[in-house]
């Protein structure tokens, strides 16, 4: 009985990974080519930009905040670097740095509004979502931007002749996110603030500073993700670039076990979440599932992941519950 309970608890504690493995096996049985190294590489490559944004989003969600502007940030960052690349002929590396600077500044503006002006994150980032896209549209005059050929080459470069560049960037971001969250004081402060900001403040943590850094970091990752995506897309950016990507990033983080209420979550979970979303999409296309059914199947998988996660939370709450023995009538009446 006890071992059955333990297995159940183990499965629930790792529900997203279990679901990931189940989905992977099902798609593979359906079409053995799904297990081909080429396809697995494709899944990771396509999940790269969502994963990069999702790491930034994980930092924000851990503080019980939210950043709805990451899609617009991705757009504005690549618009600025693309325009400069075209007008001045700068190379890929300086363009990447410009993209990162714009993304970081975008994040810094969010941080200023949230920390200094005390506007709630939801409203701030909803506003900057609109402002960012508006500025990008004005800069491009609604026209698409076609990056020079060398941008395409960057997206298709193979590191050590085997690993596509987007995967390398994704891996570095994951590693950086993991180290920051688990091996630094800054990471521990993020968890503390997410659990109880007031208690964190009383413990001497500079909450405003940490909050500001979290949004700046999220902006930085959004700028990077935009650049990675445009290099994969053949170097074209139109007005819809990055639109709705904030929801993919939030979904990846939440699927990976990050709580929307802060204090719970990690980068590895986000990695699994981003891969799961992409694997489902790829698997459905790979097996030629009816186009009308595809969004429904995708939604069912996401729903299952969230459902199992809520079961896990409920079960953990049950286990942590403290039972206070009721005072018996005889004891109460004694003495």
């Amino acid at each position, binding site marked *: 009985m006890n071992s059955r309970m333990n297995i159940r608890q183990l499965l629930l504690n790792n529900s997203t990974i279990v679901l990931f493995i189940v989905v992977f096996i099902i798609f593979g049985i359906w079409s053995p080519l*799904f297990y081909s190294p080429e396809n697995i590489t*494709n899944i990771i490559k396509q999940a790269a930009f969502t994963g990069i944004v999702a790491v930034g989003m994980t930092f924000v969600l851990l503080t019980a905040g939210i950043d709805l502007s990451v899609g617009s940030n991705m757009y504005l960052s690549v618009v600025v670097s693309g325009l400069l690349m075209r007008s001045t002929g700068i190379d890929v590396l300086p363009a990447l740095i410009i993209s990162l600077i714009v993304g970081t500044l975008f994040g810094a503006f969010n941080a200023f509004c949230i920390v200094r002006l005390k506007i709630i994150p939801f409203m701030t980032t909803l506003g900057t979502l609109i402002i960012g896209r508006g500025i990008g549209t004005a800069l491009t005059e*609604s*026209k698409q931007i076609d990056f020079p050929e060398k941008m395409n080459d960057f997206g*298709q470069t193979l590191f050590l002749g085997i690993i596509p560049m987007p995967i390398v960037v994704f891996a570095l971001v994951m590693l950086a996110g993991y180290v920051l969250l688990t091996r630094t004081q800054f990471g521990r402060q993020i968890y503390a603030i997410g659990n109880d900001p007031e208690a964190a403040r009383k413990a001497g943590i500079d909450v405003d500073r940490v909050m500001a850094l979290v949004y700046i970091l999220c902006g930085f990752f959004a700028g990077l993700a935009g650049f990675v995506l445009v290099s994969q*897309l053949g170097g*074209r950016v139109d*007005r819809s670039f990055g639109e709705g990507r904030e929801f993919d990033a939030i979904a990846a983080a939440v699927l990976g076990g990050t709580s929307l209420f802060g204090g719970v979550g990690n980068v590895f979970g986000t990695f699994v979440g981003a891969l799961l979303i992409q694997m489902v999409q790829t698997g459905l*296309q790979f097996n030629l599932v009816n*186009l009308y059914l595809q969004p429904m199947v995708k939604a069912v998988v996401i729903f299952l992941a969230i459902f199992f996660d809520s079961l896990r939370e409920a079960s953990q709450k049950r286990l942590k519950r403290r039972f206070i023995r009721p005072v018996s009538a005889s004891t109460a009446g004694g003495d």
Partner: protein
Amino acid sequence: MKTSMKYLGLFVIAVLSVVVSFGVVSAQTDVTICFGFQDLETEFWVAGHRAITETLRGQGIEVLEYNANEDPNRQLEQIRECIAQGVDGIIIIPQDGDSANTIVAEAQENDVPIAVFNRPPNDRSAGVIVVADNVSATEQAVEFIAQKALRQFEITGEAVTPLILVGALQDTNAIGRRDGFFNVITRYNERYPGLFNEPIEVATEWDAATALANLEAAITANPNVDFIFTSSDFLFPTIRSVLEPRGMWVPMGQPGHVLLAGLDGDATACQLIDQGYVDATGVQNLFLEAELTMNRLLQAIEAGETAPNEVLLDPGFALTAGNIFFQRSDMWGCVLYDDGFLDQ
């Protein structure tokens, strides 16, 4: 002599004044058209906006422009403002089919003739509706590459594997394009059994990143794809980034060329046809659509018709590697491309 010269001079001045003033009157039609559009988010809408405003102003018509920035409620308010200003007619590019119906009803209730450009209302019974025939334009483009596939099939005897990049399924334009594609494939398979394998459908949701991921999956699962139709030309760079690393991005006339067709007729499609990578694209004839819109609206204004109701179809045409020299100037994308649009 002096007096007669003076009278002759006065006569000449009088005649010239009449001619000049007549000329001025004939150029100014005293017609004001309100043009309400949504944000110009793609080069297609930039070209559509340009086609309409230039056509109207070319006729000496005053144009009041209103950009609703993708907000249907704002567009309704703007149209009410136009009506209050006493405009003679209205042209709109609506945000969606529902809001178009509301705006058309508002204009007609106030006795102002209205035309809807390129994005049709759900109910097509009210207003002048100028719309591209997506099925027809797609059929023309796909027919061109189907012919090429047939010639290949006759030589090699190997079946061709077609793939379609489908747009957002809630968009009637995307559905029309999908229907056009399947009409041609079915027709050819009936006539030439075994020509085409089962077509592969790839969802794009009109999003380049989704298209990239799904196309990459589809090509990995079916590496023998040799016939691709994209429901919109804006996905050609995405297609290229999937085909190129696999050695499948090859120009016409060389072994391994994948037959490629699209729809819209944008500047990139024009460039790629020039370069030989794309075989054909179905073109929405924006210039014809702008002319149809203006002519029908002016006709209604002149006849005092306040609620003209008519659907005007643009059958579109296929711009191919074979006719690009003759029809280049009819394609809005080539006009933009030749103006240096892609270099800006």
